[in-house]
């Protein structure tokens, strides 16, 4: 048995395989290079690498039938191109100078797979060059999104990478709305579906069972959250009384990005009237100032102000402080907003703010600060 996983976050697949005690060799196809339209797909392959069965009966997985095992399949008449290990990135980069979409794609793919996180910039630029030449290539839009999200999850991240990933995946799905892999990739980040899909609800159970066996679960670089979990289900504000606003008069002094850097992401980037978006607001301490959260003074608080006619599922949120005096982790809030049915097309600015305790450097000042944010949601014309 050999596997290929279609995953943005391969570490989650490692945890899954550890949980299920699967010892097969498995490859990672984050870019969907196989161009499979959905998963799972099972193939029976002969000794020459030729596909002999597609979605074989389950009994084949348990035990390959003797008739298949004992048969010597004919060698293919055409000589196959042998996979030759790592590609020559330098050669592919030179070939990309021919400035064809194909050459840029091949270079982007190779540097994404084998160049490491420090070279994701090159992969992104190469995909962009390919799209400038062939803008209706859905697979390249999808892979550009994968590269942006990979960079977002790495130490090489840039502000806006997450939103650019969402925008690229959205474009891919507009080109081919039937691609199940692409559709699920966006749905992982919201908004939560009407029948929430348990993308990663298995993670907590897996960790418990692995620990019960006396093993240490494989660490995850990015924890599943928000729309990636079927629980809890969402409920919009109209069905629950609002929380009390923490700073209604705006009296708390502002941090305008000095101590804490903020990034906002809206999924999907555009909705029809009556539609729902999932907002992700990410807060990172400023590395240059060695800013850090002061966890001894109080919890992080977030408040969003939906405009007239809009509803929100979580207007007020808190993030409990970790059990140590200071920390520098990323903090994130997510929530969903529904726009009114009778809204005009255009961009709507939705304000909110966070309140937090933050310190600068080791012996620097510690302050209580408010940071205002604005979410820009595009409302498109309704389909007639």
């Amino acid at each position, binding site marked *: 048995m050999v596997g290929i996983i279609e995953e943005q976050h391969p570490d989650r697949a490692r945890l899954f395989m550890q949980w299920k005690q699967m010892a097969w060799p498995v490859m*990672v196809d984050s870019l969907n290079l196989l161009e499979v339209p959905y998963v799972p797909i099972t193939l*029976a*392959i*002969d000794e020459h690498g030729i*596909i002999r069965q*597609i979605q074989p009966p389950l009994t084949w997985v*348990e035990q390959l039938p003797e008739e*298949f095992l004992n048969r010597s399949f004919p060698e293919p008449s055409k000589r196959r191109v042998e996979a030759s290990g790592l590609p020559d990135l330098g050669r592919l980069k030179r070939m990309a100078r021919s400035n064809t979409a194909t050459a840029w794609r091949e270079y982007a793919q190779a540097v994404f*797979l084998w160049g490491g996180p420090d070279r994701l910039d090159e992969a992104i630029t190469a995909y962009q060059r390919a799209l400038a030449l062939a803008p209706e290539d859905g697979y390249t839009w999808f892979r550009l999104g994968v590269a942006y999200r990979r960079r977002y999850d790495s130490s090489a991240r840039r502000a806006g990478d997450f939103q650019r990933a969402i925008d690229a995946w959205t474009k891919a799905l507009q080109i081919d709305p039937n691609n199940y892999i692409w559709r699920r990739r966006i749905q992982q980040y919201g908004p939560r579906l009407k029948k929430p899909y348990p993308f990663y609800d298995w993670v907590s159970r897996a960790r418990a069972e692995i620990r019960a066996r006396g093993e240490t679960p494989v660490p995850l670089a990015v924890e599943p959250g928000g729309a*990636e979990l079927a629980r809890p289900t969402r409920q919009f504000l109209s069905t629950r009384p609002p929380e009390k606003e923490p700073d209604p008069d705006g009296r708390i002094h502002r941090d305008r990005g000095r101590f804490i850097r903020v990034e906002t992401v809206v999924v999907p980037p555009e909705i029809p009237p009556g539609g729902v978006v999932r907002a992700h607001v990410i807060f990172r301490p400023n590395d240059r100032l060695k800013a850090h959260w002061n966890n001894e003074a109080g919890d992080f608080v977030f408040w969003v102000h939906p405009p007239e006619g809009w509803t929100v599922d979580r207007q007020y949120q808190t993030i409990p402080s970790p059990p140590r005096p200071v920390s520098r982790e990323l903090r994130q809030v997510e929530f969903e907003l529904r726009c009114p049915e009778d809204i005009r097309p255009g961009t709507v600015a939705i304000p909110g703010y966070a309140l937090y305790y933050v310190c600068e450097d080791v012996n620097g000042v510690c302050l209580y600060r408010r940071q205002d944010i604005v979410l820009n949601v595009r409302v498109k014309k309704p389909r007639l």
Partner: protein
Amino acid sequence: MRALLVHSAIILGLTVGVMAMPAPPTGFEVGQPFPPITLPALRDGRPMSIMQFRGQKLILHIFASW
């Protein structure tokens, strides 16, 4: 045999989207070679390809943990 039964149970667990009706096209074709692409191995990130298994018959499972 127990390992194979575990494998089949896992396949059942992973086949969330599989329908009882005839499956939609996969993009693969019987009689054609599996694409000789090289991908990173999940375990260590090193290059890996189906071509390494030449000479063996195998079941290839394309899946996701979601």
